[in-house]
């Protein structure tokens, strides 16, 4: 609710505010929904003046309709698809991570979600030369691991350092800090991070369930409300700034015993694409990093196909 305040629009002075409050009109919504003629009589102000105030307030606070044709033009020119660096994963994601969308990686402990996120961050910062925001809520990010991955791409230390500089890390451990961080990124933080390197193209939150799932369950509504606010903040940032959002989630077992992504029914429609990662027990000797990726790919291929069929 937007509370009526003096000076919000021309004509809304202290006296009028007082009269309106006496008539039980305290917010913009109250004013817009009420009968202007009756109100004008009660507050001894002209109908025209009150109608004009109503029109200005409505124009200030409403969402403006956009024609479909204009929206389509804008999307065509601003949507990008970011490769994750892993061709099989790209194929599953229909060419890669889409900007303006949230993609979710879920899996049990040790299934490789954070490693996939590191790989994506390294690929975007080194190959695509764009900046990445990495929000770490589990403490699992180590710069040495990022450096190790970069050393596999290039042996030039200057390039490695430049790529590392394009990955901006935020460490936070509760949902309020996460919301704070997302809001501050939206209001200027993303522009700041883009200075010096390429513009920010991806925001990775590893993991989103670590800060939200402790608040769910029980009879309180606050946890659900905070979860929806985090979803809203991520989506708004993804759409307004054309970044790809990648989040990780844990898994739980459903009533019938099968593995499903966590955070429940209310989160399930938030990400556009969901990938379930599972560790394959009979993996061959994983001496080369590339080998373990391909084993995961085979597994994820099946699972994503199932999930995708359900979620298109």
């Amino acid at each position, binding site marked *: 609710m937007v509370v009526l305040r003096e000076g919000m629009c021309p004509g809304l002075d202290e006296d009028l505010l007082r009269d309106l409050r006496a008539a039980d009109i305290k917010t913009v919504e109250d004013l*817009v929904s009420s009968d202007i003629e009756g109100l004008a009589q009660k507050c001894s102000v002209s109908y025209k003046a009150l109608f004009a105030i109503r029109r200005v307030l409505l124009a200030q606070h409403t969402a403006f309709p956009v024609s479909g044709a204009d929206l389509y033009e804008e999307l065509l020119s601003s949507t990008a698809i970011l490769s994750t660096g892993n061709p099989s994963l790209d194929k599953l994601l229909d060419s890669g991570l889409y900007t303006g969308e949230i993609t979710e990686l879920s899996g049990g402990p040790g299934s490789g979600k954070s490693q996939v996120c590191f790989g994506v961050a390294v690929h975007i910062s080194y190959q695509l030369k764009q900046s990445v925001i990495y929000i770490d809520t589990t403490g699992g990010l180590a710069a040495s691991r990022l450096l190790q991955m970069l050393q596999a791409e290039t042996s030039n230390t200057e390039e490695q350092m430049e790529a590392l500089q394009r990955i901006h890390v935020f460490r936070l451990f509760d949902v309020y800090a996460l919301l704070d961080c997302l809001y501050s990124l939206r209001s200027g933080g993303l522009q700041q991070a883009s200075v010096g390197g390429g513009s920010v193209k991806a925001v990775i939150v590893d993991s989103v369930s670590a800060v939200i799932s402790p608040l769910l369950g029980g009879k309180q509504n606050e946890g659900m409300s905070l979860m929806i*606010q985090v979803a809203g903040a991520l989506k708004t940032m993804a759409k307004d700034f054309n970044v790809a959002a990648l989040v990780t989630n844990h898994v739980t077992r459903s009533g019938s015993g099968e593995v499903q992504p966590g955070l429940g029914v209310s989160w399930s429609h938030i990400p556009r694409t969901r990938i379930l990662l599972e560790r394959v027990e009979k993996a061959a000797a994983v001496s080369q990093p590339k080998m373990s990726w391909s084993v995961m790919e085979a597994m994820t291929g099946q699972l994503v196909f199932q999930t995708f069929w359900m979620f298109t």
Partner: protein
Amino acid sequence: ILEQSVTVCASCQLLARLEARRCLKDIEPRLFPEDRGPDQGDWPRPPTHSKTELLYHLLCRCVLPEAAGGLEVDVVFVDTDYSLDMLHLVSILDSKLSAADEAALRSCLSRLLFVHCYSSSQLLLTLHFLETTLSSRPALALILIDSISAFYWVDRCEGGASYTKQEEKLSRCAELLGRLLRDYRITVFATCHAIRRPGVPSSSSDSERSYLCRSWQRLVTHRLLCSRQEPGNNMVSWSSSFCVTEAGVAFLSASEENKCAARQ
């Protein structure tokens, strides 16, 4: 003179209201058989994007030119959770229009008005604003809301302990929509996500009961329940199957339905 122009505007608005808007009785005969045209439809269902797919299906049917099997009416799409996939929508329209007809695609898209709301207060104010749009565009016959339940948890938390305060904003939206429905003779479709209430043991009948406020429940005249499995109880009067493909929603004929059921 000012007084006169005000009256002229008022009578234009009045005429715009009384003039018959395009009747949407035949919008989708497989969902709404001839005798029960839709007025206000509401779709709760377990989460996937197929509710939105059904909305796209109806949207395309409305904006396509008559030559391509459409109704040529204007549509307002109110998006509350950023789930509009414009590129997918355009690919569905493309598949229904004759190949590579840029001009026709553009004219279809110009019949679509898209609005995004980030809170229920903004939804209420936007619906008020839409009233003026309704008067100035007599071809506007359909409002699609995806989804009406997006602010449910946020409103419940903001409303504190009182249920009335929690539901206040949505009930105001419902009342306003009711007035727009009566005054302007439009049709409204809304999707509603299924939820699991904290502290309540989950059961299959939970997702079928509406959890939104009473004013909204009173407003709904048709309720379509989308579900992956067969309807269990006898609340359902009639059912139909569809599957979601690259080119949008495809309804299955009875024989295809049986084949699908046999496979599962």
